């Protein structure tokens, strides 16, 4: 009796997709079948085998699309953002602390592009200190800001070993680029070049040690002359 009902129900179900008017009838049947099949599990199993005989669609449809691997959806960590802090020496103007933020994009395992925005401060020239006269620059003019965009080359990638116990991933990089420095109130075209070491602490975090020469030409002290300004800094960066 139950299986006959089931048969009718399944037939109804088959046509359900095609005709929406059969849906209400299907609902009624479904409730009836549910009540009946609650009585005996064996009958349900029988109904299931019968369903197979009737060549019905399986109840659970596996979707093959979900198993297809979408490479673009994999989390990529080609960007690196971080802050650096260190010391910057300005030719004739002494040494002061420098801070910078940097954003890098890793093009390949060998090359990356890095943009930096930083600030530091000019000290007093030895002439100002010795003469005790009027300062050459106002406080505002002593604020130095700089930006640059550089191309980095991971020249010696690999592991380095500390005390024979720990292996750190990282590597030495060479970097050079161009930018601008606001020096003594003027914006000056600046070339930077240097080298750094990147300790990759985890997949998503790295420590940097960086030495960079910022070269520009300035006539602030009377004659136009080239100035080398060396920056030593340490940085903490995150990959994302």
């Amino acid at each position: 009796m139950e299986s006959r009902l089931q048969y009718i129900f399944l037939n109804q179900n088959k046509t359900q997709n095609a005709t929406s008017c059969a849906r209400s009838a299907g609902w009624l049947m479904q409730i009836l079948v549910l009540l009946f099949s609650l009585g005996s599990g064996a009958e349900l199993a029988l109904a299931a085998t019968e369903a197979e005989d009737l060549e019905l669609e399986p109840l659970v449809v596996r979707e093959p699309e979900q198993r297809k691997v979408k490479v673009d959806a994999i989390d990529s960590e080609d960007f690196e953002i971080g802050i650096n802090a260190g010391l910057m020496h300005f030719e004739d103007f002494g040494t002061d602390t420098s801070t910078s933020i940097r954003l890098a994009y890793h093009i390949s395992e060998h090359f990356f592009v890095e943009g930096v925005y930083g600030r530091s401060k000019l000290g007093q020239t030895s002439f100002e200190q010795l003469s005790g006269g009027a300062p050459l620059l106002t406080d505002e003019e002593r604020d130095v800001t700089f930006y640059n965009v550089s191309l980095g080359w991971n020249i010696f990638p690999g592991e380095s070993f500390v005390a024979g116990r720990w292996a750190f991933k990282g590597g030495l990089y060479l970097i050079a680029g161009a930018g601008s420095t606001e020096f003594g109130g003027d914006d000056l075209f600046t070339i930077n070049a240097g080298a750094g070491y990147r300790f990759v602490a985890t997949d998503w975090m790295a420590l940097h040690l960086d030495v960079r020469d910022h070269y520009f030409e300035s006539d602030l002290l009377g004659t136009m002359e080239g100035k080398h300004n060396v920056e030593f800094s340490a940085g903490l960066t995150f990959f994302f």
Partner: protein
Amino acid sequence: MNNNRYIQWGLMVLMLIFSSSAAAWNPFEKYQPLVVVSDPYIELRTGPGKGYPIFYVAAQGDEVQILKSKTDWYKVRTPRDKEGWVHRNEMRHTLDLNGDPIDFGELGLGDFSKRRWEMGFNGGDFGGANSLSGYIGYALTPNITLQVEGTQILGEFSDGVMASANILMYPFPKWRLSPYFTIGTGIITTKPHTTIVAAEDREDEIAHAGVGANLYLNDRFMLRMEYKRHTVLTSRDDNEEIDQWKAGFSIFF
């Protein structure tokens, strides 16, 4: 009142339990697909680069999970819980769970000619002064790109900034060395150096036309060279003509 609050708390706890048990609902879950090794083996390195040593191999038939990628490298986890980095060329020898090959497509010339967004940085000569510029471009079609550009001009006696909007036309977008024509307009602000006495800041409109070319290197990377002739629409009697040469690199997305 109190009872209501208990019910609310209870519901929240229940929701938490359900949401954590049904991992598929979690929007923060990362996409980390399983793939099957079809080569005799793939090599796992300690880091994403050829400079890092190989410490493990995953054998044929192993189901490895891809965790993330960095440049051309994929971090995978093997069935024995070893995690290491595999190069894209080796990942090409894996299949999805249906046994179908996976497209670990490297970007190529086709992607270069069909690029949408690009950004770049370049430097050069602006009428005897140094110029540095950055731009962002959007391709309406492979032949036409709209671009906004910011330029800093650093001269011996003055410096300035220029903001401009350009339109670029590529007659041959499918070529690796793809030439273009450009026209645009903008604003240039000039500020004399502090060592120059009694000179004033100026702001002028500017119009320009130029030619250039992009050279596709690999992946998302291209070089750009450009020549532009600027006409500064000054408030004086004569307009000023300035030649600009520049070169730089760009990345497209």
